[in-house]
């Protein structure tokens, strides 16, 4: 890899780079670890799980050899529990709350959750049944973690549920946005299949607002849950952004999950702008695609970055360089219109802004040039504001306003959950919180429609 792009890396090698990093627990490891669980009463790990999985119960079931029951306990509370086993920041949630942190070391809850759900995937278990049809119809816009969770719960209550999914497959972030070596697509697609098997219709490649009119949906369904997540990465608004070799991190990761892996980054120098989890994903994907040097540029410092600690550690182990207090000012192209250099400026931290974080301020005259072959933008995500407005929902910069108890929007027939309500001080951006919001929205819909069923009767 040292002499640039001449190095040959076979496609199989690239694919192997995208195999899951962590192997699952062996049966013996699962036995030992599950038996180590104290089976706490009123366990803090349950409290720390946004979906409230009965963790001691599912672990006890692994220990007793009741793997089906274990998987069911997990998926009961979290319809995307197989994905969450892999992507949850467990040290900040369940494992962080484990009482054994004060004693020995916390139980590997995420790994045990993966062990049980992997068993269910491998053994093609059907864990839930659809409810008796109640004659009501609910539309769910977006088939990501929030939408799937809402749809699954509604199907179990007996609703006829239709998911409108813009992409070719459902699963949202889990299917398209989380790197394969963390979360293989098959896991997310199993969760999708579990929901479909309850009779939920998933209309894929159907973008609301383009392929179907929101008004038509509102007319045809008794309730609507908007769970469209977020959109692409916004523009940097600097010169050279249109050059060949400038990428959107979301799209970049998606390509590694949906297309044949490309050789074009072998031996190349990649600069990733931003220091959130998506930036880490783009950087580690670049490394795995054979890039010789990958830098993450962030205009603030490590203290302000939004990436999880374990993601940061993971990127460092992948030899990703971190350049703090560095902001891009201009992308320089060659005569063919391809990225050649990235001009940056050093920053320093000034007074705290509205969000409490210290604002980065450019250091005058500190501009410098980086030689790069690709620039990947990972500075957040834009909103599906047009869709939100097409439904006539109150929002703040595309973040849908909801009642935080019921997730009901300004339209009493419409509920919203997941990343579409995240931001502006509202909610959390985790898969697991999206799942919980989807469940809660579904229960609120059921509460509302059940009442109307009673009134009608």
């Amino acid at each position, binding site marked *: 890899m040292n002499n640039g792009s001449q190095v040959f890396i076979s496609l199989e090698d690239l694919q192997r780079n995208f195999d899951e990093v962590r192997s699952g627990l062996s049966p013996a490891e699962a036995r030992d670890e599950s038996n180590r669980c104290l089976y*706490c009463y009123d*366990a803090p790990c349950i409290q720390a799980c946004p979906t409230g999985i009965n963790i001691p119960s599912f672990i006890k079931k692994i*220990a007793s050899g009741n793997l089906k029951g274990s998987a069911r306990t997990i998926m009961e509370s979290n319809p995307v529990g197989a994905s969450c086993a892999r992507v949850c920041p467990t040290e900040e949630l369940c494992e962080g709350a484990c009482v054994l942190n004060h*004693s020995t070391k916390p139980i590997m809850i995420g790994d045990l959750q993966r062990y049980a759900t992997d068993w269910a995937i491998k053994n093609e278990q059907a864990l839930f049944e659809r409810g008796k049809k109640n004659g009501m119809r609910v539309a769910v816009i977006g088939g990501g973690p929030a939408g799937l969770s809402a749809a699954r719960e509604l199907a179990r209550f007996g609703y006829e549920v239709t998911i409108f999914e813009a992409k070719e497959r459902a699963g949202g972030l889990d299917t398209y946005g989380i790197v394969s070596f963390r979360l293989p697509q098959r896991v997310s697609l199993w969760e999708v299949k579990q929901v479909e098997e309850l009779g939920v219709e998933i209309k894929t490649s159907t973008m609301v607002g383009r392929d179907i009119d929101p008004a038509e949906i509102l007319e045809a369904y008794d309730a609507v849950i908007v769970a469209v997540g977020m959109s692409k990465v916004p523009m940097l608004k600097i010169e050279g952004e249109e050059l060949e070799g400038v990428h959107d991190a979301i799209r970049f990761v998606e390509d590694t999950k949906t297309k044949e892996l490309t050789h074009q980054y072998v031996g190349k120098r990649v600069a990733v702008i931003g220091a959130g989890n998506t930036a880490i994903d783009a950087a580690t994907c670049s490394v795995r695609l054979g890039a010789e040097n990958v830098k993450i540029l962030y205009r603030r410092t490590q203290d302000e970055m939004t990436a999880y600690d374990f993601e940061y550690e993971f990127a460092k182990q992948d030899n990703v360089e971190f350049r703090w207090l560095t902001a891009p000012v201009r992308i320089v192209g060659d005569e063919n219109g391809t990225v050649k250099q990235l001009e940056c400026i050093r920053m320093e931290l000034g007074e705290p802004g509205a969000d409490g974080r210290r604002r980065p301020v450019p250091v005058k005259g500190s501009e410098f040039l980086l030689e790069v072959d690709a620039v990947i933008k990972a500075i957040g995500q834009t909103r599906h504001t047009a869709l939100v407005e097409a439904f006539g929902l109150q929002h703040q910069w595309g973040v849908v306003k909801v009642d935080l108890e019921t997730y009901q929007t300004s339209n009493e027939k419409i509920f919203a959950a997941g990343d579409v309500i995240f931001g502006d001080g509202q909610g959390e951006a985790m898969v697991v919180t999206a799942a919980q919001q989807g469940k809660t929205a579904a229960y609120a819909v059921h509460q509302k429609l059940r009442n109307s069923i009673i009134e009608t009767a």
Partner: protein
Amino acid sequence: MADLRINLAGIESPNPFWLASAPPTNSGYQVQRAFEAGWGGAVWKTLGEPIINTTARFAAVSFNGKKVAGFNNIELITDRPLEVNLKEIYETKKRFPNHAIIASLMVEPEREKWHEIVKRVEDVGVDGLELNFGCPHGMAERGMGAASGQQPDLVEAQTMWAKEAARTPVIVKLTPNITDITVTACAAVQGGADAISMINTINSLAGVDIDTWNTIPHVAGKGAHGGYCGPAVKPIALNMVAECARNPMINVPISGIGGISTWKDAVEFMLMGAGGVQVCTAAMHHGFSIVEDMIDGLNNYLDEKGLASVQDLIGKSVERYSDWGNLDLNYRIVARINQDVCINCNKCHIACEDTSHQCIDMLADPDGNRYLQVREDDCVGCNLCSIVCPEDGAIDMVELPHEQPPMTWNERQTVLAGFKGN
């Protein structure tokens, strides 16, 4: 360095750790390896008329992922010709003159048969004899082993027959498959036993395979009860040793057997009256080398306690073992939770709440920090909370000052009878 040598009814051994009569002592090769590893003695796999063994033979019980919490076997006595065993005993004794070799014996309950076998094994130089009245399976169906060991008269008679011929000390090994082991122990003493050993294995079925519905183990789809041993039986064995040790009619040394896996177990048995111990399952689980820590740990323990000889331990706790009627009813302990050690798993709360006396409260301080607290007035001092507590030192059982003078049930009944008498 304390003196680890023991003398059990005249049988001397460099340390109290003997291998029990079982698969580990099946041959000269094995016993010599054991002596090389450090074992002080070995009770040779029971000699008698050669038998035929089955496959499979062993099964074990796992508990919470830990293997061999208990162990079960359906193997019988030696299946090798007596001449071969005698030759190997002779060779082993010659190579290890200072180690104890005890021949375990089992023959039909006939005087001549006992005389004959005793004479033959003593001729090759054993240090003692152990009469196997305990084997609970197979041999018992032929009127030997536990079958004869469950009848006090047969125990007494056979002990006597063996003693008539024996020049070396005779140990009688007792079966636990009996209501009151002191009865057969007394019978052995009556018959002239120089010592008793206990326990042999407990009748057991290790398990049932829930997929095939076969017994565990099974022999071609059929099972039969086996003998249970290993860590799970230790409390049963310890009680039987203690009951014999505190019985004034049983005034012979005891060789303790049953679930002994570590030097600590050995110390417990000796404190409860054993003059030495025999080990099998732990060696079968881990190999002969485990004796190294047994010796080392025992040595360090004795040094720490300032005891010059391991024999100073024998029986030191026996006087503290009594009948329930002699326990002080006015003695009180209560649980106290150490907040700085507690990890808030709440196991003590739910154990007390669901299954004991509902006296551990889950509380929160003004800052919302949760903590557990015992209502001492309601605490009966049952120990359950401290038993289920996973964190060492989080719960202390604290002794309270006597509010009433000590009084046992027996004393109470005596006093009441006195009132009635008046």
